[in-house]
């Protein structure tokens, strides 16, 4: 027998079950009618001939069942039978079914919820180009721990570091958004960044242009990028928004573009400005001891490991501490991969939580298995009776109710 013909026959049986059934009917009917006609030709009255033909054919239903078996339909059919039986059993004992489903649902639900968090925080790729080479830097002091970075220190870091190919400064800012087109004044948060910030991150504006280097110097024109969300909620996703102005803290800012939809900062932001705007008339831009609310991100140079960058940066920080003792005495520097900066200190907790809910699912499964076991044990004698009565190879004893 060829495997191919067996497969074809099985496929036809599976796909065209109802057609096969009606064909089988037609074939057997043809047989009986043809035989009855032959009998009638031999002189038997018509009704009697049909009856005789039926009688001689034997059990039609049995023949059909044997035909179905012969063409390999029985595996799927008995599977369907088992499923139907399973559903019937579950319907018959709603209490048992509810407990089993609820137990499993709890376990699976908890797992899904926690896994979504784990995926979002630990596994989902960050929306930056080659994010594994991005490092977040901040200053440290023995008294406070982690602190922001002073802008003059950042300028020295950037000038002296070789392990980083690029470095950018990010200062948190917030404004009062009011004026034309805004029904109610509201507070919006943003970041003032070095003009190269987006290229450090490997992000391109969704609309409009990136900052240009001149916008890193104080006294530059007031320009900004909108977050995709603010663009959607306040500007109706208008593609002609570039070039329009909005009023922040009473000053007009020209919109030069929109950030991509998947852009993500360490904090939620609505707008992004060039650092030159932040530095304009801002004493923090020149006072070394001034540490506002800021951080630094750097892209490791090709072939420079994090450890090398860390050693280099610690050297630079020590030199700056000696050079400017008033502002930098005892200040050090901390480097973290950007993924760690996003996760914060929660990594261990999240993994412990994940392990915990996995155990909850295991326990739930074990509980359901126990329920079935108990129910099965209560039926052992019944099974034994059925097996003895109907023969162990019969399907019958599997389908008692």
């Amino acid at each position, binding site marked *: 027998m060829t495997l191919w*013909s*067996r497969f074809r026959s099985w496929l036809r049986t599976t796909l065209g079950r109802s057609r096969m059934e009606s064909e089988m009917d*037609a*074939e057997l009917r*043809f*047989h009986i009618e*043809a035989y009855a006609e032959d009998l009638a030709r031999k002189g038997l009255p018509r009704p009697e001939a049909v009856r005789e033909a039926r009688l001689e054919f034997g059990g039609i239903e*049995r*023949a059909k069942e*044997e035909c179905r078996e012969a063409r390999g339909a029985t595996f799927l059919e008995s599977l369907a039978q088992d499923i139907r039986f399973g559903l019937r059993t579950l319907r018959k004992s709603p209490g048992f079914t509810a407990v089993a489903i609820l137990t499993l649902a709890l376990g699976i639900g908890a797992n899904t919820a926690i896994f979504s968090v784990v995926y979002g925080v630990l596994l989902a790729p960050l929306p930056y180009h080659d994010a594994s080479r991005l490092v977040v830097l901040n200053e440290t002091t023995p008294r406070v721990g982690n602190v922001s970075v002073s802008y003059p220190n950042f300028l020295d870091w950037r000038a002296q570091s070789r392990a980083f190919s690029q470095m950018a400064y990010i200062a948190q800012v917030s404004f009062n958004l009011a004026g034309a087109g805004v029904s109610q004044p509201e507070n919006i948060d943003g970041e003032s960044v070095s003009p190269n910030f987006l290229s450090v991150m490997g992000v391109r504006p969704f609309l409009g242009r990136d900052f240009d280097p001149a916008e890193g110097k104080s006294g530059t024109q007031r320009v900004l990028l909108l977050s995709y969300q603010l663009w959607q909620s306040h500007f109706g996703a208008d593609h002609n928004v570039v070039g329009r102005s909005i009023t922040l803290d009473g000053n007009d800012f020209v919109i030069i573009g929109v950030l991509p939809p998947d852009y993500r900062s360490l904090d939620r932001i609505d707008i992004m400005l060039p650092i030159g705007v932040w530095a304009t008339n801002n004493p923090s831009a020149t006072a070394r001891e001034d540490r506002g609310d800021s951080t630094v991100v750097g892209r490791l140079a090709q072939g420079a490991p994090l450890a090398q960058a860390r050693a280099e940066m610690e050297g630079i920080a020590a030199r700056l501490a000696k050079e400017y003792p008033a502002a930098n005495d005892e200040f050090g520097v901390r480097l973290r991969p950007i993924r760690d900066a996003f996760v914060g200190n929660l990594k261990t907790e999240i993994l412990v939580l994940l392990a915990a809910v996995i155990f909850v699912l295991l326990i739930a499964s074990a509980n359901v298995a126990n329920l079935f076991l108990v129910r099965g044990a209560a039926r052992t004698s019944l099974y034994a009776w059925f097996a003895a009565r109907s023969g162990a190879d019969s399907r019958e004893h599997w389908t008692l109710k």
Partner: protein
Amino acid sequence: MHKPLDLLQGTLDMLILKAVSLGPLHGYGVLLRIQQISKGHLEIQQGSLYPALYRLEHQGWITSAWGESENNRKAKYYHLTSAGKRRLQAETDKWNRMAGVIAGILHTTPEKV
């Protein structure tokens, strides 16, 4: 006339293949042809004919197609496939060898032992 013989176990498949090898037949035609060739000496259970046909088709030795019967009715006709032809040859050889061996045994007389 002798009472018709019941079929030997396992010979129905071979007889169907032989009947179909002489030309395409519908199920009832297979029955008639076997009775005709055997001159009424063989009794075939009509109910067991169709499972055998379906089994042979499932195994790829015959195929079926719907056509018109002698009296213009739709009927399912069976044809021998080339695999079926080889199968029939093999079965025939086996049967002849077996029949020869059995006959040899049954014809044995005390002198020959």
